[in-house]
Every structure is written in structure tokens, then in C-alpha cells.
């Protein structure tokens, strides 16, 4: 076959070269700039692993595919690059599901490559066969199986394009082993071909003007920022915009880090366990400007009474997010960064003295509090101390539950990609593998997993991964011996019947040492600062087991079905002043 040169491709690439499918995959990954991958071997992915053996890609092997998927996810969250995970067919692919669901709900750019049995065996219940595309369809932005080697390179390129553009998300490519070992004459770079995939980046100019006009008129505006601003790398543009228009800023769990929480305009997190001042401000505002947020039920509480006096502006790249849960008055579809720049041009500074005075009063009256005089180790105190000693600068991952909410309340974040947590899916066990992925992405950063004992239990085997790769991650377990948030709900709504929310835990310091990490146990309040200092100084993975107050609750709390201004626990918090 003659090598016809393609006008767009360099001459050297135009020459046809015969490659195996595995070679095509690995060469394409390298060409796409992939430097790090996570994953686990297995029968049908052996051809791929053989090519990876001498490829310029760092490969991190977790102890379980779920861990690998969370690592790739957190790598993406910490770095802004696409995370890549590779797993074998059947059980390997099935073990990715939780990780894919986590990335899907939080719109994280991730590419999963899975091995599959030979195409002629598909559907025969072959060994380690699973209908991977069928199983993962609802937990991916897109997935596909490659059944013809001529489609292979294009499919891999499309996966990266889809994962990283528009509203990002996980994309899975299923690779039957006969495709990986098959041979194909490659002729230049494969071009992506996605006629159904269009992204609106630039916002509609008239909608932007309408939004700016509403902002300029507003007496009591609130800016409500979600993870979309971080995904769009628009934190700097957000700050410029908020400062120019003079707006108070509240953030969703995933929005934390997009705006410096040390600033007086920060209202911190809103919603079910958000700040009283954020929730009051949202309920009293006359204009709510949502950017890259999706009006999740944990944010809105009772939808019918959410922000009842407000006109709503919603900036989002995903048109299906707009008016999904809450009616939007001024929608602007597009990229947050671009729209924030355009909005900034049209907004004017307004003093809004009365509004800011009111907000300052709420902040003064209802800060996040805990009992500082208590003799026991309060979990909030541990987080406070970590925040103080790391000077707001660490990368923090979490499990899910009380540990996560307290971290969101008491660690004050100052920059994007600093807080890494499973928001939408609420995946327990995310914290430790996430810390590993984040540390791989940011080798020089201080990375701390602030975890719950039960969340940690779910994936603690990954501590061995941290030891193998000599990652100086810190795991701070807020060990109350309960599934704390479940116990809190049982205390409040199930008459203290603690059904199945208790497990007998191991001695975590011993577990850490057995796996080759450093273990510290802290059960006295006065030892907390010293333990945090030691933990931060360790060059090896370190687990600090803080035996905290067992039945501490997260306050404030908006009970299910209530408006977000109807918070429980405010009087308890006031009594701690």
C-alpha cells in the first residue's frame, strides 16, 4: 500500500507503519501527553501492559481497581489533567464502577480503559467476561467498545476529548484482547469525528448583559459558586468579578477553594451543613448568581422555598443543568471562565452597605463553633489545628460523612484544587486513594486525608500503595468508632437506636506500621498539636489515629424537607460561645 501523505499530518507520520492495537493505544496515550496512569493487570490487558513496560508513562498499581479509579480521579482534581485508569475485563471493570460513578457525579475528567474478552467470545459468558459498556453506561459521560482496530486510535482520542471538554466526566473505552494484539497499518493521526458533540463555550452576549444588569440593580445579591468554576480554571476570574461587583460569595462543597475563605466576603459553604450566614443570605437575597453549580438537594433543602425572594442567574456549561431543579430567570450557557470575564466588563461596583452589615452580623452571631473548653479531643479542634499548622496551604482529601462536613466547615481553603472530596456520589473510602492520586499529581504539596474511621476502613489497603511509592501522605483519622453521620441521624431521627452504625476497629497505628507506614495514636487533647506537627514532618506515609469525642454532631443541620434557613443546632452552637 502506498503511503499517501495527509496534508494536515507531518510527513513522518504519514508513512504507514504497522502497529499492534496495544501499541496504538500506548503511543496515542503518550501523544496525548499522558504521564501517569493508575491500574491493575489481568489476563486480557497483558498486551497493553507489555507495551507499557517500556513506555514513558509512570504506572501506579493500587491494591484494588476501585482505589486506582479514585487515584486517577483525584490526580485529575489536583492537577487539572485527565486522569487515566486501566483495568482488566470482568471483575476489574466491575470494580471501577464506584470510581466512575464518583467521577461522573462530580464531573471529573477521567479516561478508563478496560480489557475485554475476544470479540468472537463476547456474549458467551466467557471467563472474566462482563458487559462492561452496559454496566458502566449510566456512570460515564460516554463509553464505547472497539470492535474494529481501524477505529481504535480515533476512539481513544475521542475519549480524551469528551472527558476533558464541556462538562467534564469519565469516559470508558472497552478493548477486546484480539483488538489489542491485532495489527493495523496506521496512516497519520486519526481525527476525531463526533457530529453529536458540540460545546457552547461563549455565553450569549444578550444573556450576559441581562445578567450584568440584574447584578448592577441588585440590593442584596449572593454569588453561589460550585465545582464548575474550579473545573473551568476560573478562580482568578471569579475573584476579579466578585471584587469588581462587590458580591458576597458562598460555595458548594465542591466549590470550596474557588474563593479565598479568609476574605470577609466569603460566606463559606451553604446547604445542609453549611454556615448559618450563607443560608440566611441565600434566603434573603434578591439576586442569586449561580456559577458552575447545579442546585443539588443538599444545597437547596426544600426547593419550593429556596431563595424565595431572589431572581436567579445561572451560568453553566451544561444546558441540562439549567432549570432542572430550580426555575432560572436568566440562564447563561457557556464556559464559566469566558462568561466571568465578559460579566466583569459590564458590572459596576456598588457599596451595598446595609446588606454587608447584615451579613457581618450573621457571621458574628453564628460562626462555625465547637466546645473549645471540652476535655476530650474534639474532631473540629483537630481540623482547626491542621489548618493552623499548614497555614491553609495543604491539599486536603476526605472520606464521606461527619469527617467531610467538619473539614468543609473548619479548614479554610484559599485556592482551587486544594480540597478533594466526593460530593455528588458521597463515596466512603475515597479519602485515602484520593490522597495518593493527589500526591502523585503534586509531589511537593502537603497532602492530608482527613478521614473517618469507617471511611478509612473501606479502602485502607491502599496504604500499602502509598508505602510502595514512598508518598509522604498523611492520614488523619477522626476516630469516633461510629459511622458518625449515620449515628447522628439515628440519634436525631431514629430515637438513638444505633442500628449497624458501629464496627470494632483495629488499632490503626499498628495497621500502619504493619504496612510499612508510620502510626501515631492520640487520645489526649493536649497531645493534638504535637501529633499534628509530627505527622506533618514525616517523610513516609503517616497515619494519625485521633480518638475523638464519640457522639459529637455536625451543626448546623438543615433537616430533610426543610428550608435552608430552618437550621437545627444553632442554640447548641451559641451555648459554646
Amino acid at each position, binding site marked *: 500500500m502506498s503511503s499517501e501523505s495527509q496534508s494536515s499530518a507531518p510527513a513522518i507520520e504519514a508513512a504507514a507503519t504497522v502497529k499492534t492495537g496495544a501499541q496504538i493505544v500506548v503511543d496515542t496515550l503518550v501523544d496525548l501527553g499522558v504521564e501517569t496512569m493508575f491500574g491493575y493487570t489481568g489476563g486480557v490487558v497483558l498486551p497493553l501492559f507489555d507495551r507499557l513496560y517500556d513506555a514513558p508513562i509512570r504506572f501506579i498499581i493500587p491494591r484494588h481497581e476501585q482505589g486506582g479509579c479514585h487515584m486517577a480521579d483525584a490526580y485529575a482534581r489536583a492537577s487539572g489533567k485527565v486522569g487515566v485508569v486501566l483495568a482488566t475485563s470482568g471483575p476489574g471493570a466491575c470494580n471501577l464502577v464506584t470510581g466512575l460513578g464518583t467521577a461522573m457525579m462530580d464531573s471529573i475528567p477521567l479516561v478508563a480503559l478496560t480489557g475485554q474478552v475476544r470479540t468472537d467470545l463476547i456474549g458467551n459468558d466467557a471467563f472474566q467476561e462482563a458487559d462492561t459498556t452496559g454496566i458502566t453506561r449510566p456512570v460515564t*459521560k460516554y463509553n464505547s*467498545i472497539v470492535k474494529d482496530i481501524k477505529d481504535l486510535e480515533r476512539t481513544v482520542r475521542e475519549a480524551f476529548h469528551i472527558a476533558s471538554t464541556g462538562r467534564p466526566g469519565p469516559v470508558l473505552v472497552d478493548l477486546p484482547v484480539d483488538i489489542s494484539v491485532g495489527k493495523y497499518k496506521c496512516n497519520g493521526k486519526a481525527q476525531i469525528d463526533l457530529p*453529536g458533540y458540540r460545546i457552547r463555550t461563549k455565553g450569549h452576549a444578550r444573556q450576559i448583559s441581562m445578567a450584568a444588569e440584574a447584578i448592577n440593580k441588585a440590593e442584596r445579591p449572593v454569588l453561589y459558586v460550585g465545582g464548575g468554576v474550579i473545573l473551568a480554571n476560573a478562580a482568578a476570574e471569579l475573584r476579579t468579578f466578585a471584587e469588581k461587583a462587590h458580591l458576597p460569595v458562598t460555595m458548594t462543597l465542591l466549590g470550596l477553594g474557588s474563593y479565598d475563605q479568609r476574605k470577609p466576603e466569603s460566606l463559606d459553604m451553604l446547604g445542609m451543613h453549611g454556615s448559618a450566614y450563607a443560608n440566611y443570605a441565600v434566603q434573603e437575597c434578591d439576586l442569586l448568581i449561580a456559577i458552575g453549580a447545579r442546585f443539588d438537594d443538599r444545597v437547596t433543602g426544600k426547593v419550593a422555598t429556596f431563595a424565595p425572594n431572589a431572581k436567579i442567574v445561572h451560568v453553566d456549561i451544561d444546558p441540562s443543568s439549567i432549570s432542572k431543579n430550580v426555575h432560572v430567570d436568566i440562564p447563561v450557557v457557556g464556559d464559566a471562565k469566558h462568561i466571568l470575564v465578559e460579566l466583569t466588563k459590564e458590572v459596576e461596583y456598588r457599596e451595598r452597605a446595609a446588606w454587608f452589615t447584615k451579613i457581618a452580623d450573621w457571621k458574628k452571631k453564628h460562626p462555625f463553633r465547637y466546645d473549645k473548653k471540652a476535655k476530650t479531643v474534639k474532631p473540629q479542634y483537630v481540623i482547626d489545628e491542621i489548618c493552623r499548622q499548614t497555614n491553609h496551604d495543604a491539599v486536603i482529601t476526605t472520606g464521606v460523612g461527619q469527617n467531610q462536613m467538619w473539614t468543609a466547615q473548619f479548614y479554610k481553603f484559599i485556592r482551587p484544587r486544594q480540597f478533594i472530596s466526593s460530593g455528588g456520589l458521597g463515596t466512603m473510602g475515597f479519602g485515602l486513594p484520593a490522597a495518593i492520586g493527589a500526591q502523585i499529581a503534586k509531589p511537593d504539596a502537603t497532602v492530608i486525608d482527613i478521614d473517618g474511621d469507617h471511611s478509612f476502613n473501606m479502602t485502607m489497603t491502599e496504604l500499602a500503595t502509598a508505602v510502595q511509592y514512598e508518598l509522604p501522605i498523611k492520614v488523619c483519622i477522626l476516630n469516633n468508632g461510629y459511622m458518625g453521620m449515620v449515628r447522628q441521624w439515628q440519634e436525631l431521627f431514629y430515637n438513638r437506636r444505633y442500628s449497624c452504625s458501629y464496627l470494632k476497629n483495629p488499632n490503626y497505628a499498628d495497621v500502619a506500621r504493619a504496612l510499612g507506614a508510620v502510626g501515631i495514636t492520640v487520645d489526649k487533647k493536649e497531645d493534638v498539636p504535637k501529633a499534628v506537627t509530627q505527622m506533618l514532618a514525616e517523610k513516609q506515609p503517616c497515619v494519625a489515629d485521633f480518638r475523638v469525642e464519640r457522639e459529637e454532631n455536625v451543626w448546623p443541620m438543615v433537616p430533610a424537607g426543610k428550608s435552608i434557613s430552618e437550621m437545627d443546632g444553632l442554640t447548641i452552637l451559641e451555648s459554646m460561645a
Partner: protein
Amino acid sequence: MKHIISALVENKPGVLAHVAGMFAARGFNIDSLVVGRTEDPNLSRMTIVVIGDDHIVEQVRKQLARIIPVVKVQDFAGRAVVARDLMLVSIAVPPEKRPEIFALVEMFRGHVVDISQKTVMVEVSGPETKIEAFIDVCRPYGIKNVARTGTIAMPRQGTSED
């Protein structure tokens, strides 16, 4: 209210599963769903009849558009469209009653496509209301089997949007 939604989709494996899965996952109700080829061998057209209020149908439209191999989505509500359903119906008709049925078939511009000692099979196409009306008039004879395609639709030429 019933909405006819037309989606042009790439001819790729898994597209139907993706669309059907999205409807199931988000709790949208499908009245009928028809897939067929188009003038372009790379594209198929799905015609989906959805029951729901404007808010729900708006979400259906947006969620469909979000599926990567879905190229274009149109909601025909409020537009002049030609909508057709095709039915094969087998009716219990003894030989002496055949003339009655033939007259009905004539009236509905259908065709008799099969005949046996005890039954007559009829093909009828048209808007859903016409199909339903034909079923109603045949019911007294006894309906043995019904097979329907579900609705396909196309906007009348010269109406708004493309």
C-alpha cells in the same frame, strides 16, 4: 400532554441502550419509540412520544441532546407535523361477515393483507386517532392481535425551524 420528539442519532452500537437507559434512569415515560434508518447511512432517526408537562419534556430534550451520539433533537410540539402510525390487526371474522369488514377497511383506507377461515388481517396507517378509531369499530368482531409501529413524524414543509 403528548410530545413527539425526534432525535437524529449516530448509527453506533449501544445508542438505543443509551437513550432507553437515560429514560429509565431519569424516570421519564416513553409512550412509543421508533428507530429507523434515514437518508444518511451514518444516521438513524428515533421518534419518541413522551407524556409529560413542559418542564419534564424540556428536560427530556436536554438530556437527549447531552448523549454524545445524539446529533440533533427536536420537539415537534406546537408545530404542524405529519404523524403516522402503522398497524397490523387480526380480526375474528367469519366468511359471511367479510363484506362488512371490507367496507370498513375501505372507509379507513386500509388494506386486507391476509385472510383465513376465521380471521382477516388488516393493515392501517395514519394518525394515532385514526388507528384507535379503527380498533374501536373492529372490537365488536373480536380482535385477535394488534401490532403497531408507534409514531413517526415529520414537520410539514415550509413551517418554522429548518
